[in-house]
């Protein structure tokens, strides 16, 4: 089972990619998926991060399903 992780702005620059597919376990929580991505990109920890699951702001308690779209980003700065 696999999900896609998206990065934007500062996180895309730090991760050196805008998108990455990762394997996840059945019933895995979003928080666990995000933690493993952060472990692979330790410099992301320098930023205050926000998360989304399927284009909704995520708290981490979401149960991840195959094909879900996750994202990691810094505090928004549009306008």
């Amino acid at each position, binding site marked *: 089972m696999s999900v896609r992780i998206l990065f*934007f*702005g*500062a996180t895309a620059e730090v991760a050196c990619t805008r998108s990455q597919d990762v394997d996840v376990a059945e019933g895995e929580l979003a928080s666990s998926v995000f933690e493993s991505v952060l472990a692979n990109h330790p410099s992301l920890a320098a930023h205050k991060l926000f998360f*989304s699951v399927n284009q909704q*702001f995520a708290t981490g308690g979401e149960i991840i399903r195959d094909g879900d779209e996750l*994202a990691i980003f810094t*505090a928004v*700065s*549009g306008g």
Partner: protein
Amino acid sequence: MDFAELTSQPLDIGVIARRVVPPECGATVTLDGYARKFTKDKTSGEVRETRYLEYDAYEEMAIMEMQKLVEKAKEQFEISNVGIVHRTGRLEIGETSVVVSVAAPHRRAAFEACEWLIKELKRTVPIWKKEVYLGGDHWVEGEN
């Protein structure tokens, strides 16, 4: 008509303001944000001259979040129509980055809703700004 859009093309605030107008309303309030030339660094207080800006957006989610704001604004305020358009990509100094336009039968509600919308947009819509200045660049992180 309500709308919430992203575009990489230049914004014409007159056109946007006019798209929200229903025939029974007489006033529109429009907030127009643009790429400013001088920016004060929040930490150092140093004033930098910006060369240009770049906006990155999580497009699908940004449009959904903007649509949510439009719906909430129409619940909270007595307004007729709302239009929000945010520019993406590279913006030269002086170009418009965002337009929020609200038409209402009474202008008080239009002012209130417009102010609320831009505040919430800056807080919740997944769009990020990079300032490119002489000798470097910097992704701005919001206060949220």
